[in-house]
């Protein structure tokens, strides 16, 4: 019994401390170093942050190069899709233009009416003093790991990007900046499990929190009233209650799924985003 325990301890000690052939470091040293790196990263000391920013920028640039073959496959796939979809898209776009024209007239009428009503109630003329910041950026990588559904953009602190800024693609909100480096930044997508946005549902005064599940077509509303049931084809807007996003930015819409259940899908398609706009919470137009 004692012999087998001794053997076990010897084997463990050998595995941890013995440097193998051509090995420069022992496992014990490297495991300790990893733990130290984790703790230092957690402490977020200024010199660690700047070192990490430089490391991130370097790694992201190499990753862009390393991901080129994968991007080329995507590019070929896009060409194929575009080739087959061009006629259908044209038809849909023509219909959309007609609808938008009609909506445009309605909007003009509503704007005028709103202005008149504001003037009547003496609440008009409130203009935000906050300067609108809009920075176009190119998506250099889109990363889908089991931990984060995120994008990497080619603008960083050098260009005025800060943590918490909102990112739009084609006027739709796609996410927020969660990590900034000198020349790059990471955007957490609205479809990610860690994304939580205060929202309001069209034609109601119901507030909720829109949470991602990792899939574009399956977002979830949390903290809703118990008796409330969703209706299909309703737009979900930001409520602006987090103090970061302005109210009224369209984020998602409800739809009837194939199984006759009402689901929520993101309006933007983050995976198709090539150029995005980083703002300080205002809507990018």
């Amino acid at each position, binding site marked *: 019994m004692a012999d087998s325990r001794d053997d076990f301890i010897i084997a463990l000690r050998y595995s941890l401390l013995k440097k193998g052939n051509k090995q420069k470091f022992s496992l014990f040293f*490297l495991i300790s170093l990893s733990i130290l790196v984790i703790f230092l990263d957690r402490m977020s000391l200024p010199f660690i942050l700047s070192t990490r920013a430089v490391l991130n920028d370097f790694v992201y640039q190499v990753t862009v190069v*390393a991901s080129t073959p994968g991007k080329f496959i995507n590019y070929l796939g896009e060409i194929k899709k575009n080739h087959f979809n061009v006629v259908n898209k044209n038809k849909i776009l023509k219909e959309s233009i007609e609808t938008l024209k009609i909506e445009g007239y309605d909007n003009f009428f509503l704007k005028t009416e709103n202005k008149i009503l504001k003037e009547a109630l003496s609440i008009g003329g409130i203009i935000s003093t906050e300067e609108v910041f809009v920075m176009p950026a190119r998506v250099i990588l889109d*990363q889908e790991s089991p931990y984060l559904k995120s994008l990497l953009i080619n603008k960083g602190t050098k260009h005025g990007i800060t943590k918490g800024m909102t990112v739009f693609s084609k006027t739709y909100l796609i996410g927020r900046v969660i990590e900034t480096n000198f020349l790059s930044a990471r955007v957490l997508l609205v479809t990610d499990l860690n994304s939580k946005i205060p929202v309001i549902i069209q034609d109601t005064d119901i507030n909720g929190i829109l949470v991602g599940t990792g899939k574009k077509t399956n977002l979830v509303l949390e903290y809703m009233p118990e008796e409330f049931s969703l209706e299909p084809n309703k737009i979900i807007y930001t409520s602006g209650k987090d103090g970061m996003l302005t109210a009224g930015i369209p984020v998602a819409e409800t739809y009837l799924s194939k199984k006759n259940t009402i689901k929520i899908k993101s309006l933007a398609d983050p995976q198709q985003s090539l150029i995005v706009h980083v703002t300080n919470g205002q809507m990018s137009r």
Partner: protein
Amino acid sequence: MKILNNLKFFFINNLIVVIFYTLSFNTFAGIKEFPNLLIFTFNLQMIIVYFYVLKFPSNLGTGHIFLAGIINDVVIGIPLGTSSLSFLVLTFFTTYIRTATLRSKMTTEWITFVPALFFSNLVYFIVINNFSHLSFYYIELLQNTFFTFLFFPIFYYLFINYETKMLKN
């Protein structure tokens, strides 16, 4: 010409290290074109670490494993050092298996890959749970781990053939 030959010699002898680093840097953007294949995603880095530490420990240094882990963390966006620690725990477990095993067979090595993966992923979960505010996609991770285990024999024979036949030639 001599430089080219040296470069060729270096790449052939260190091909697995090059592949290992490439996997760390890569985001596998191309796989999105095949959404039906996404379910079969697996962690080739884990297979490489397990196989090479078990069979050819001199071909893949622990320093490389540590550095590739750090790169992996930066690319994925998780706390720095998490993947390194996870890979090193896998290395530790594998070194122990190598030391304790007298006669090695593919099947036994395949079976021992299960606890090795378990401990490696356990460390991963512990670090991410305690050192970040990230949530997991548990189903994706479970699928990933399962297929990593399932595809091990394929890569086992592939790497064995590469190391024993190709490198001898």
